């Protein structure tokens, strides 16, 4: 809780102490283990999480998107080892999503049909900037029953530069140099901060430029590291490379399967 001056803070602390003492009295009078253990009723949950992680890096004239291909139920059981979490929407737009797989599919379908309609109306492919805005609105449209997904949209923009747009489930949009989402996001992002953002290195220290080869290697290594430590990430890396003026390349690389 934010406090703006000392008085509020101390009054708040007193209140907290007071309610803590109250809680202590209540619990001492009737500890959990004396009452019959309460039954936790499982309420129906419209969402589930299928695990896995995705990541995108943009550079001067390229954008690289990767995800693992594992799909998990309840964090434990593996449903499939080759789930598609990356969708190539057109020659310059790649969508990658993690989270609730039902919403992932639905969101993809919505975007695909909107892109199709755009092509029909304007006789041209949509640009990634436009699609980014479209996706944001589609997500915010469901403000109170959101698509439970962490989406990342990547591609080559109108100026031939790599673009990565990162979203929260309700459509907060941000254009970044690199982004990750999903279960292993906390493991991948600081690594990229260090290796691409160079935010942790001293001023005088040599900082290698982000070439496409380096970006691909970093992408692979970050997934290899994440697969070691995160249980719902593994099986395969699905790597999609978009370079300005070239067709999109897709690759699959092995990851550990346990």
């Amino acid at each position, binding site marked *: *809780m*934010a*406090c703006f001056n000392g008085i509020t*803070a101390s009054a708040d602390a007193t209140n907290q102490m007071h309610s803590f003492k109250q809680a202590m009295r209540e619990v001492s009078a009737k500890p959990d283990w004396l009452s019959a253990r309460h039954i936790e009723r499982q309420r129906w949950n419209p969402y589930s999480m299928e695990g896995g992680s995705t990541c995108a890096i943009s550079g001067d004239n390229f954008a690289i998107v990767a995800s693992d291909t594992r799909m998990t139920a309840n964090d434990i059981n593996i449903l499939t080892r080759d789930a598609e979490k990356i969708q190539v929407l057109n020659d310059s737009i790649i969508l990658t999503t993690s989270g609730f797989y039902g919403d992932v599919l639905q969101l993809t379908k919505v975007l695909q049909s909107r892109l199709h309609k755009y092509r029909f109306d304007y006789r041209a492919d949509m640009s990634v900037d436009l699609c980014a805005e479209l996706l944001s609105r589609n997500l915010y449209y469901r403000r109170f029953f959101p698509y439970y997904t962490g989406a990342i949209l990547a591609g080559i923009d109108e100026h031939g530069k790599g673009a990565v747009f990162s979203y929260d489930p309700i459509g907060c949009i941000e254009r970044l140099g690199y982004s990750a989402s999903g279960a*292993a996001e*906390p*493991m*991948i*992002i*600081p*690594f990229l*901060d*260090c290796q691409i*953002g160079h*935010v*942790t*290195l*001293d001023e005088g220290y040599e900082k290698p430029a982000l070439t496409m080869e380096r970006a691909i290697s970093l992408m692979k*290594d*970050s997934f*290899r*590291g*994440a697969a*070691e*430590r*995160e249980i719902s990430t593994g099986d395969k890396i699905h790597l999609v490379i978009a370079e300005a003026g070239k067709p999109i390349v897709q690759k699959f690389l092995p990851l550990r399967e346990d």
Partner: protein
Amino acid sequence: MSIMSYTGGTVVAMAGDECVCIASDLRIGEQMTTVATDQKKVHKVSDKVYVGLAGFQSDARTVLEKIMFRKNLYELRENRRIKPQVLSEMISNLAYQHRFGSYFTEPLVAGLDDTNKPYICCMDTIGCVSSPRDFVAIGTGQHYLLGVCENYWRENMKPDELFEATAQSILSCLERDAASGWGAVVYTITKDKVNVATIKTRMD
């Protein structure tokens, strides 16, 4: 909100060739409010044995006192320096004694034993010891650290290299962990000395 992230704080340790590194941030907070910026979570137990305590810092203090009490008693009774392996077993038993109603702190032990072999281990709040040969991390930045360390750790690092790897790992973690930060200290423990470095971090 988990009680483990109430005050924030992160500790990481890495093992090298006859050396270990242990690092912590300096922030202590009350949820989102930063209260102090000079709280080390790494404590010296003996010359070559250090213990890190992340989690709820009020409990960490109590536990540290209990650890020091037991360690002093051990050294008086046995008339020898405590080894990191022994210390971790001691802390594990202490933590497990409070199996029901635990202290909300995760201990980490890093040090060199008397043959200068590195030893690192971390525990959960009830004393489940895990002592890998590479690195351990505890606290609010654990997830961030494990991902980074996985790529930065390598076999048989010398003290210089180990320091850089540990420092860069904790710096990367502080970049993203809101509950830790405000500076960091890195202890490099080698067979003849301990080097305590305060490193430059983002201050937020």
